[in-house]
Structures are given as C-alpha cells and as structure tokens.
C-alpha cells in the first residue's frame, strides 16, 4: 500500500480521495505537505481547516514512515526538528528551564517531547530499574517473546508498558496486536505510581505540548468549598448536635411514655429503628403512622 493511499484510507474518503489527488498530480506525502491548503481543500472537497488537518496527519504519517525506514538510531540522532510546533515546544521548555532553575534540575529534563505517534522504544525504559521480564510473568508472554523484546530494548515490565507498540513490534517481530495485549497486561500489573520515578522528581508530570501552547483554564478546586476560608466554621449548640444511631444518645432524653410499648418512645430500639434516632427524620423511608411495624412479618 502506498503511503499516500494509507493516508487517504485513514483520514480521507479512501480510493475516491486517492484518485482525485493522483489525478491532480499530488502523488506523495511530500506533495501533500507542500500543497496549498486552499487547493488541497478543493481536491478533498472539504474545508480549508480540514485540509490543514489532513496535511498535519500526512506530516505525522510521513515522519512515522520515515522513522521506520531510517531506523531508531537515525531517529534518535535528529537534533533540529523541522516541525514548527515541535520547535516552539522545545524553545518554550528551554526558556522555562533557563528562567526557573528549580530543584527539578536534578531530574533530567526531557530533551525532546514525547512523540505522539511512532518513534522507537525509549532506551531509558530498559535502563531504568524495574521488574525484569521473564517468561510467564504475563499471560501469553513466553521465553521467545521475551528474547525478541529484549533485543528490541524492552527488558522490563515498565519498559513494556511505556514503549511504543508499533515501533517495538517492528523492531522485535512480535505481532502488533499481541504486543498491544501484552502492553495492556503490563500496565495492569504495574502499581498506580511506578516505582521507577526517581526521588525528588516533581509530582506533576512534564507539561505536554498542548498544555504549553493552549492556555488552559484555571484548575478547579478538588473539593467544592462551601464557605469562604476566612470565615470561622459555625458550631452547633450542644443540644442540637446530632449523633449516630449506633452510638445512641449521649444523654437519655426525657419524653412521654409510649402507651403500647410501655417505654419511652424516644428511646430507639436498634432492631425497630436502625436508621435514625429520636426526633431524627428518617431518610429514605416515609414515616407514616399507619405503617405496620417491620418486625410483624407478612403473616401478622
């Protein structure tokens, strides 16, 4: 399948889009990137905005396929990304690093943003201390698969959980869908906070490109605040304080005697009234005077 055909299948109208593009002389992903968005929109029969998005997807696919051809070493050796978005993100990070020499300097800052698609498996995933992969630690992970993965640089459970599935599949020869399943199992088996995070690392993850470029709204408080913080918390008077029915009233309340039971109606029997105490409105159950007692049973 031609990469342009792949792009048309993924983000276009399949063979119809492919035929129109080829008839117009746009026969490769490079030509897609170089085409004017207005002209491309006419060919795709979409809006200019959709045509720009098509170009971005074509660019990403082109990078992905180029990475597959050049190999992981060539991809790692790239110093200056050509994508203006990536350049902008890198400049922003460098500027932030220069302005804020915080204790986060001890943590190695990422040299380049995490690629969204494609890219080789990260080497540090194998270098970090973690649970080593061995046959049988995951369902479907046998010794030969472990060997193939270790050849591709994935030697730990953490590395397997974080590696790029497609690139690792290409490098190791493990089928893609099988690797996806193993990755899912590896993620499940890891704790919520991975143990491989070095001490002193900031608790929040590194900002993504979207977070850096798009102004995000102010974060919502984790718990809704009911009253301003500077106001004192009001306290209820002692006699109105509520108590839990399990504990019972702290002091016996005085009230009229129940004519039927011959005891104080306010003294709640836990078997009869487990939901609330005296004077307490019962939640979830309507208190009707005609209701039969619960202990009466169906044959009463």
């Amino acid at each position, binding site marked *: *399948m*031609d*990469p342009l*055909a*792949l792009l048309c*299948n*993924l*983000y276009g*109208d*399949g*063979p*119809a889009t*492919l*035929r129109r593009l080829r008839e117009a002389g746009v026969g490769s992903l490079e030509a897609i990137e170089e085409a004017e968005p207005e002209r491309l929109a006419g060919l795709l029969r979409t809006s200019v905005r959709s045509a720009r998005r098509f170009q971005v997807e074509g660019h990403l*696919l082109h990078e*992905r*396929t180029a990475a*597959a*051809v050049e190999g992981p070493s060539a991809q790692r050796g790239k110093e200056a990304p050509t994508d203006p978005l990536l350049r902008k993100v890198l400049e922003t990070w460098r500027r932030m690093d220069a302005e804020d020499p915080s204790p986060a300097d001890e943590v190695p800052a990422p040299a380049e943003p995490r690629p969204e698609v494609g890219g080789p498996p990260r080497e540090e995933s194998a270098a970090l201390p973690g649970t080593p992969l061995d046959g049988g630690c995951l369902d479907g992970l046998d010794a*030969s698969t472990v*060997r*193939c993965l270790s*050849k591709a640089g994935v030697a730990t459970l953490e590395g397997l959980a974080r590696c790029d*599935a*497609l690139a690792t*599949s*290409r*490098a*190791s*020869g*493990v*089928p*893609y*869908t*099988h690797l996806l399943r193993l990755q899912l199992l590896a993620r499940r088996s890891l704790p919520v906070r991975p143990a491989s995070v070095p001490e002193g690392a900031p608790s929040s993850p590194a900002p993504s490109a979207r977070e850096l470029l798009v102004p995000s709204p102010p974060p919502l408080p984790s718990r809704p605040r009911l009253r301003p913080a500077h106001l004192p918390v009001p306290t209820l008077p002692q006699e109105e304080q509520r108590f839990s029915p399990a504990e019972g009233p702290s002091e016996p309340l005085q009230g009229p005697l129940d004519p039927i039971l011959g005891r104080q109606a306010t003294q709640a029997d836990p078997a009869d009234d487990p939901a609330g105490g005296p004077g307490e409105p019962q939640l979830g159950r309507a208190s009707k005077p005609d209701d039969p007692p619960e202990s009466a049973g169906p044959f009463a």
Partner: protein
Amino acid sequence: MQALSLVNQKGGCGKTTSAIHLGAALVRRGARVLLVDLDPQAHATLGLGCEIESGPGVHEVLAHGVPAREALREAAGGLFLLPASARLGEFEEAATQALAPERRLRRALAPLASEFDYALCDCPPRVDGVLTANALAAATVAVLVVETGAFALQGALRALALVEESARVQGSRFDVRVLATLFDRRTRFDREVLVALQARFGSLLFDTAVRRDVRLREATACGCPVQELAPRCRAALDFAALAAEVQALRLSNGRPLCPDDAKQSGPVDEPACPAPLPAELASTARPDRCAPLRPAF
C-alpha cells in the same frame, strides 16, 4: 485466465463478501469472471441468489470428474458461478485416498481458461484442507483477506506460513497479495492495525482497504452484488477501486491458467525446487522469526 484465491483460516474476515463484490466489480469493468465457491457452507452461492443442491456443483466436478462447463450457472451481477453444496465437505475426507487431489480444480478450470478472464476462488476458513490446496494450486494470486481487527497481524502471519508450506509441498507458483477488509476509520484501533499492516506488508497490501458498510450485508441478504443494490455506496466504490488494482496487477511469480493444464495428470509444472515466496515475505511468513521486515516505502 488469472485465478485469484481468497484465503484465510479465520472465518468472518470477508472472503466471501470480497469474492462476490470484487467479481461483480470486475464484470462492470468489462471482464468475464467465474466465481468458484469452495466453501461447504455455500455462502457465496447463497449470496448470489442461487439455490444449492439444484444441480451439479464443485463437489461433482472435483469428486466425480464432471466437466466444469456442465456445472456452470449464471448468477447475479453478470457473474458465472460454480456452486458449492454441503456435500463438498465429503470431498475433504474422500480426498485422503485419492492421488494428487489438490490438482483437480486446476485441471477442471483449464478448459475454461479461454472463456474467462478471472476466476475467483472463495476458500473455506481453513488453510490446511484439500479444498484450499486446490484453490492454491489453481491460483495465480493468493489474496490473503485480513480483517483490520484484533489479532489481524498474527492471523495473517500464521496464514501466510501455511500458504508458504502449501506452496512448498505442492510446488505451486503464485503471487501473494493482502487485502484489508472491514476497515472502520473512525476507530483508532482499526487505523493502527492498518498502519501496522502497511508497515509489515508494504506494496503487497492492496491500496484499497474495504470499508465496513451495511450495504454489503443488505446486498448479501438480497442475493445480489452491492453494485446492483447501491452502486454509489462506499463499498461499491471500494470494490471498483480494488478491481482496477486487480486488473493492473503485474504477476511476478504466478502463471495464468491455460488450456494445456488440463492434459497434465500429475502435479502441474513441478519445479525443480519449491517455488520461493517473494523476498518481502520470506522473513514474515514464519511467525517465529523475529527479523523485522523493512517496510517497502
């Protein structure tokens, strides 16, 4: 005549659907197409609106030596059909006692070689049976039909290994192409699987990925190709593009059927050494191999 055998050991991946609608699309492009239903479930026969058990079919051709011309039927969409029946399953058992049973279809189709441009063989969902072996022995192109779903690559590699084994044992020569079906571009998983298929198979993968379309199911229920039911739907457009690709195929290994093939009683054009698969597939046909395949682009 070029014979395309649509194979995969997995059921429900679109072999029968692709055979019917690709055949109809080829007919619309002016080709003469014969559809051979080798599946004992006879879904291609039913999908073209033909009745089963109403005359001689593939079973009689293979098991009893009935001439294929007598079993031919005209079907919807301008196709000609060699129908299947439930008795076709018996041929699998009877073939164990026959001599070179996997060559019978090629010999049977040879007299029709000058009357048709394409023969599409719809195979049963197993690769190691004698029916699929017949289809591969007659094939000039083995089309591996792969659904863009879970375990697609794994199943495709396993099927390719079996196809390679079959070609090695029989000494058959055919080209291999991969067709992605049931593609739904709205789901990220399908998109990733298609990218993975492209990375693995490269130029062997057809440019057209057949998209999922409800019209295909409706057409099957109506007993006609989708080109007759909804000629403007996306499935019809996909199969039209696929037919154009099939017509533009350049064979590198497969040898078209010719009438002389009918005279050979033994294995046809037995090569001195087993026919090698294309170099791109040599490292991928065995799932246990770990060497990465360099993408074709």
